[in-house]
């Protein structure tokens, strides 16, 4: 078993590269959910490169489950860069002979479950994590959920069960970008908050971090104090990295046009490590 040595600088470089790749693909299709992928990106990168353990054959021991199905582009580009996805997968994204749609499908390498309908991942994760406990396997399950999924009753049902079953091996990241299809959550759904208190009251340990700061993600896992399931609220910016996409609900789904694409690329190139 090897522990990943995570370099913050390399992580930042990778995330710029991933964002460019997502924007490239966005030019071929209208459906890409780029903004939601950009908000989750640093956390997903940290999970793959900093948290998931590998065996001596360089295969992942731990599991990553993308419950936030519409943010899957953040996972796809990482799976591609790790060689788990062949390049043709993303080159044929959302095409009739391709393997990938805009929500992940079970059966593809690196994809643990079919997601896209919100509020399913927590139940699946509890089942997977519990199965590993029953079989005494030392596997951690890293789950990524959207903040919108915390509006689904099913998520809370299974959170209760995760705590009942004392699933120490379950670590959940919340991509808290505070923005959903209808608008800004704080305005459209004010009683969604406070969040951390709700999570803690369901028997979880909870930390709140800047989701774009990989060091904070790593520390939140390293510094956990209890054996309870751990939830990390990553405060993020939807559309992070491209100024005109940031926190604008319209970018939930659409792809940039060719002019916007060029502007976005320029902005990404200007980002300094």
């Amino acid at each position, binding site marked *: 078993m090897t522990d990943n040595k995570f370099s913050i600088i390399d992580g930042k470089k990778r995330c710029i590269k991933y964002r460019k790749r997502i924007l490239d693909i966005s030019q071929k299709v209208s459906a890409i959910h780029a903004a939601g992928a950009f908000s989750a990106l640093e956390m997903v990168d940290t999970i793959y490169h900093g948290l998931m353990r590998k065996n001596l054959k360089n295969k992942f021991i731990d599991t990553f489950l993308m419950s936030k199905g519409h943010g899957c582009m953040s996972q796809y580009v990482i799976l591609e860069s790790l060689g788990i996805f062949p390049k043709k997968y993303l080159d044929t994204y959302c095409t009739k002979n391709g393997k990938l749609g805009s929500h992940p499908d079970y059966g593809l390498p690196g994809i*643990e479950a079919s997601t896209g309908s919100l509020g399913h991942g927590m139940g*699946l994760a509890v*089942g*997977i994590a519990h*199965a590993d406990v029953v079989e005494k396997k030392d596997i951690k399950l890293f789950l990524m959920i959207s903040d919108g999924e915390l509006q689904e*009753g*099913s998520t809370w049902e*299974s959170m209760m*069960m995760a705590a009942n079953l004392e699933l120490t091996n379950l670590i959940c990241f919340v991509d808290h970008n505070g923005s959903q299809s209808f608008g800004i959550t704080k305005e459209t759904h004010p009683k969604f908050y406070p969040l951390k208190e709700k999570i803690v009251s369901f028997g979880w340990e909870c930390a709140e971090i800047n989701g774009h700061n990989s060091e904070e993600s790593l520390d939140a896992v390293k510094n956990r104090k209890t054996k309870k399931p751990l939830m990390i609220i990553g405060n993020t910016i939807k559309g992070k990295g491209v100024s005109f996409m940031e926190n604008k609900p319209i970018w939930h789904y659409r792809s940039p046009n060719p002019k916007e694409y060029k502007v976005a690329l320029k902005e990404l190139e200007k980002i300094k490590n």
Partner: protein
Amino acid sequence: MRNKLADIIYKTGSKDKKICVLVADISPAGSMSKFREKYPDRFINTGVAEQSMIGIAAGMALRGFRPFCYTIATFALYRPFEMIRVDLCYQNLPVTIVGMGTGTVYSSLGGTHLTQEDVSIARSIPNMKIIAPCDPKEMEDAVKYCCNKSKSPTYLRIGKAGEKTFINKLSEKWSFGKIRKIVTGKDICILTFGPIIKKAFEIRDQLKKKKISVEINSCHTLKPFDLEGLKKRFKKFKFIIIIEDHSEIGGLNNIVKTAAYENFYKGKIINFSLKDEFIHCYGDQDDLLNKHGISTNKIFKKILANI
């Protein structure tokens, strides 16, 4: 039926460590209680949280387990419908959903506890299999199949407790996906599924007095349906009766009549199914069925008028 379910799961689960049970606040009686005590890590009670029950079962199945999800049918199938569709059926996982007290079994509990359209709903989801055993003996075969052989999601539609056994020495052997002849006859063919088979036997006895011979078949596997077996019955019989404790929409009635049309069947088919109406009656099960035209007497009279 539910005792048989618990017995088989306990016996199989003692040897096969991949068998697990998830319930949503159903009190574990009999062998289910033994399973819980002996294998606490493979028995999960999610409380009144059926979506969680299905989601967790799917997660365990993704790791190679073969879970049974068990609660009252309406809560087992309707409440977590999307989890069943996406987590179980879309991913094609070997999870058995045991719906207890199906059809009008929970007669006095009111419409919230009745499952008039469960077969119709379950049938429409790709990858889903449906088994509805007619008595405790058939239940045994069905549960064994789910424990040992099933490779996809299965809706196991059962009664409650105390059902009489109708399978006898002369009955055909149980085989998944095959219509099963329970008793032979030559004039009329009854097709049915589930514990309502009791009515078929009552009608058979009455018709016997009129020298009319009745064959009774248990269509225990509703999906995939044995269309070849059905064709054989179309050839042999000119008069087919369908009896089902289920809506006339999407159940055995639809299966048989669609096949009849496609096979140019020239005989007569009469169905006794629940109507497409909610039931506001709080008597015993016979009272409810009677409201929808399903009583031994009514069926008997209609058969005599049509033969």
